[in-house]
């Protein structure tokens, strides 16, 4: 069945009888995202029917290619539809990330859901609402202006004679080819009744009862559990493999295709047992270790020898960050089902349409014979853009003609998934005697261009990004290179402030013109009491600010640092965040707090260690991530709700300032300037 027919058949069952818009997706090239702009691909339809359907039960079903990975898109998008359609959140059903049912979408990344998808479905909902009002007006023989819509019903504003219509009754008459106009009036933030509210997650109950179905929870009749034979080193090629012992085990099947060798069995434990029996030989290639990383990233670029421009204070410094892992708690997984004509894959990915293309390409079948469905997923943080597990499961399923479940182990996650790029920043900068910036020459090797451009006023800044030949697979991460670029820049600004004998807050304020950035910085300093108290012995205060994807963040922290003991503890952390009009203050705060604490990991603990193609710390026991006991005793988080500004996303920005704030506080406490992540004292 083609995608077109299956959608129509589904709608017939729903009882709406609306025509299905023909979706014309295009194949997206498979490549890791995070290197700047994404290629536009696919046609995004503007027929109402492609986006929203009101059923006979009055439930508004909305289709979006965005997915839920813990960033609360499902709830926020539901609120936005409920707002414009004038219904309760409970009567909105979001169908997310299903390539058969949902309009084409590039992917859930870049903090685009709030600024781009939300207005799209709000326009659809508002169009539906207005159409329902017009239909009711005709039936009642009144002007549309005499009516209002509320709670799924249309009735008269004044002088009701009891006549009212439910959406369910009216929806049958919505023209099936109705197009959403490009200009649709949306409810301004000052009038929000449903948006702007701290609605709890619509899936809360399912999650706490353990009944929410993540990818790995899906079970299909006759399903086999699969394991892929992995090399001991990255880039190794399979020379030979002896599967004779595995083949003797009852129920075990083998799939082999070049370097790709997998076992499948009726239970996961049997698949594990079978895998261990396989004797394999691999041809390895020598590869570097993380000890050589800085040299590799700079490549053949010789350090700049030209004299720095004259300035009262000069700074020449290099900063460094390692590869780090996303560590999504749900390892990537897929359940693939080949029925002879169509491949259906359940998988947790941020790019369902991209993964559809990857699977189609891997199997050599057209895209319309592949359906990708993304259950609400156990997180991504930018690490689940590609369809690794999906392609593997699909290959095995097609080869065996059976449904296949494949889940990566944690070690596979740490080894074969892509990392946040490592980076080096070489900087030379100068300040004038009055504390204004004199010059700024900044080169980022390998980590990326996100957050490269400094918001501080300086004439002719030179800001370059140079791609290196990365020794490890790398790709997108929460806020991308903005994490490292902010670390380098905000540390450097602190170093210049110290050189000028100026307070770090005053130095930044002097050089900042961006009002929104100034607002969060000053609010954070105010909340913290910056300048009001002196830290106790062994403690220090530090601050940093930044902007990313339409959001603005500032952190002020107090750390306790002991160089001899090699210990750093964040005792207190103030975060101020602003992203325009806040759609859901509860979830916005959750994302901001989550970003800050996750950022503490990149600041203090996280580093991928590798040698000769092996990730030597690729286990949960060896790669430290923030835990309950790492959360600062005192955590103050303030959201500046700018109802006068369009809503931006909040999933990424808040991670960018915490690392430099901590680094600056460590300097204040110990006099030790740390320019590498993770921040640790060299012993």
């Amino acid at each position, binding site marked *: 069945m083609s995608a077109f027919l299956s959608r129509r058949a589904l709608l017939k069952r729903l009882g709406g009888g609306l025509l299905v818009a023909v979706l014309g997706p295009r194949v997206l090239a498979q490549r890791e995202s995070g290197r700047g702009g994404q290629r536009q691909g696919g046609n995004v339809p503007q027929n109402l029917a492609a986006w929203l359907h009101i059923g006979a039960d009055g439930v508004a079903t909305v289709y979006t290619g965005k997915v839920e990975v*813990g960033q609360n898109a499902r709830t926020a998008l539901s609120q936005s539809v409920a707002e414009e359609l004038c219904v309760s959140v409970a009567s909105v059903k979001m169908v997310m990330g299903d390539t058969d049912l949902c309009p084409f979408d590039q992917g859930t990344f870049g903090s685009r859901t709030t600024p781009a998808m939300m207005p799209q479905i709000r326009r659809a909902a508002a169009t539906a609402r207005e159409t329902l009002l017009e239909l009711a007006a005709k039936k009642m023989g009144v002007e549309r202006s005499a009516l209002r819509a509320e709670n799924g019903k249309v009735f008269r504003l004044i002088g009701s004679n009891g006549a009212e219509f439910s959406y369910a009754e009216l929806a049958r008459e919505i023209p099936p080819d109705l197009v959403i106009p490009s200009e649709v009036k949306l409810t301004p933030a000052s009038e929000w009744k449903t948006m702007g509210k701290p609605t709890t997650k619509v899936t*809360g109950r399912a999650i*706490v009862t353990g009944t929410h179905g993540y990818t790995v929870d899906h079970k299909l009749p006759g399903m086999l559990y699969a394991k892929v034979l992995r090399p001991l080193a990255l880039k190794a090629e399979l020379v030979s493999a002896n599967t004779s012992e595995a083949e003797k085990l009852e129920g075990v099947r083998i799939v082999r295709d070049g370097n790709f060798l997998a076992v499948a069995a009726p239970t996961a434990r049997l698949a594990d047992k079978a895998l261990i029996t396989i004797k394999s030989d691999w041809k390895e290639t020598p590869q570097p270790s993380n000890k050589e990383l800085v040299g590799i990233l700079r490549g053949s670029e010789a350090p700049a020898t030209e004299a720095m421009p004259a300035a009262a204070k000069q700074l020449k410094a290099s900063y460094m960050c390692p590869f780090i892992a996303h560590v999504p708690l749900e390892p990537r997984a897929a359940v693939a089902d080949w029925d002879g004509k169509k491949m259906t894959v359940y998988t947790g990915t941020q790019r369902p349409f991209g993964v559809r293309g990857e699977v189609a390409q891997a199997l050599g079948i057209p895209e319309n014979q592949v359906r990708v469905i993304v259950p609400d997923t156990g997180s991504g943080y930018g690490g689940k853009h590609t369809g690794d597990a999906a392609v593997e499961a699909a290959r095995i399923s097609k080869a065996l003609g059976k449904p296949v479940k494949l889940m990566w182990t944690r070690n596979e996650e740490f080894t074969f998934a892509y990392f946040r790029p490592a980076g080096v920043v070489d900087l030379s900068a100068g300040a004038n005697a009055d504390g204004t910036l004199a010059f700024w020459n900044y080169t980022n090797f390998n980590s990326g261009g996100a957050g490269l451009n400094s918001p501080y006023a300086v004439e002719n800044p030179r800001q370059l990004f140079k791609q290196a030949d990365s020794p490890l697979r790398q790709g997108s991460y929460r806020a991308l290179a903005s994490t490292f670029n902010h670390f380098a820049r905000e540390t450097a600004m602190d170093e210049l402030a110290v050189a000028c004998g100026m307070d770090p807050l005053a130095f930044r304020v002097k050089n900042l013109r961006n009002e929104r950035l100034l607002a969060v910085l000053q609010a954070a300093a105010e909340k913290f009491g910056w300048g009001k108290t002196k830290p106790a012995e062994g403690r220090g205060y530090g601050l940093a600010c930044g902007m990313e994807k339409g959001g603005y963040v500032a952190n002020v922290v107090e750390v306790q640092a002991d160089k001899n003991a090699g210990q750093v503890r964040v005792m207190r952390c103030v975060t101020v965040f602003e992203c325009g009009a806040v759609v859901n203050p509860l979830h916005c705060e959750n994302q901001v*707090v989550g970003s800050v604490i996750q950022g503490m990991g990149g600041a203090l603990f996280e580093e991928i260690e590798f040698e000769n193609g092996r990730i030597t710390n690729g286990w949960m026991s060896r790669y430290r991530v923030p835990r309950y006991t790492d959360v600062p005793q005192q955590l103050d988080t303030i959201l500046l709700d700018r109802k006068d500004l369009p809503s931006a996303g909040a999933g990424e920005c808040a991670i960018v300032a915490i690392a430099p704030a901590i680094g600056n506080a460590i300097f204040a406490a110990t006099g030790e300037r740390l320019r590498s992540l993770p921040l640790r004292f060299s012993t």
Partner: protein
Amino acid sequence: MGQSIELLVNGSKRSVNAGPDDFLLEILRDDLGLPGSKFGCGEGECGACTVIVDGAHTKSCILPLSAVEGKAIRTVESLANGETLSPLQDAFVEEDAMQCGYCVSGMLMAATALLEKNKNPSEREIRDHMRGNICRCCAYPRMVKAIQRAAKTMRGEKS
């Protein structure tokens, strides 16, 4: 395979075709139709698989069946009483103590074990007890709040 082991899970005797060396998590999820406990690491480090065995919270991904024969195993599926959520489940929902939710089953079991032993844990005691459970989305502050809220409810105090 012919092997069979009897387990006591959520108050019921359950028989499974598995050996003493097989790990409890997979048996719960795949054999006993209890997928609420989750796989996160297979090392006993992240706590997504946390269950309660004879009153103590423990990581089921590294727990061989031989270690739980004859013992009372409880999973997240045992917390609710029909449609009524436990005070902890309710508190997690009300406090929105979750983001992607994948760690929540484990969090609830670890916290349930805590509150069954300590009716009025301090914040420090909560953090120390829960330290074995990772939330990668870092929803920790709300989880602490939820546990405190549930403790209050269970003590009969009004929120």
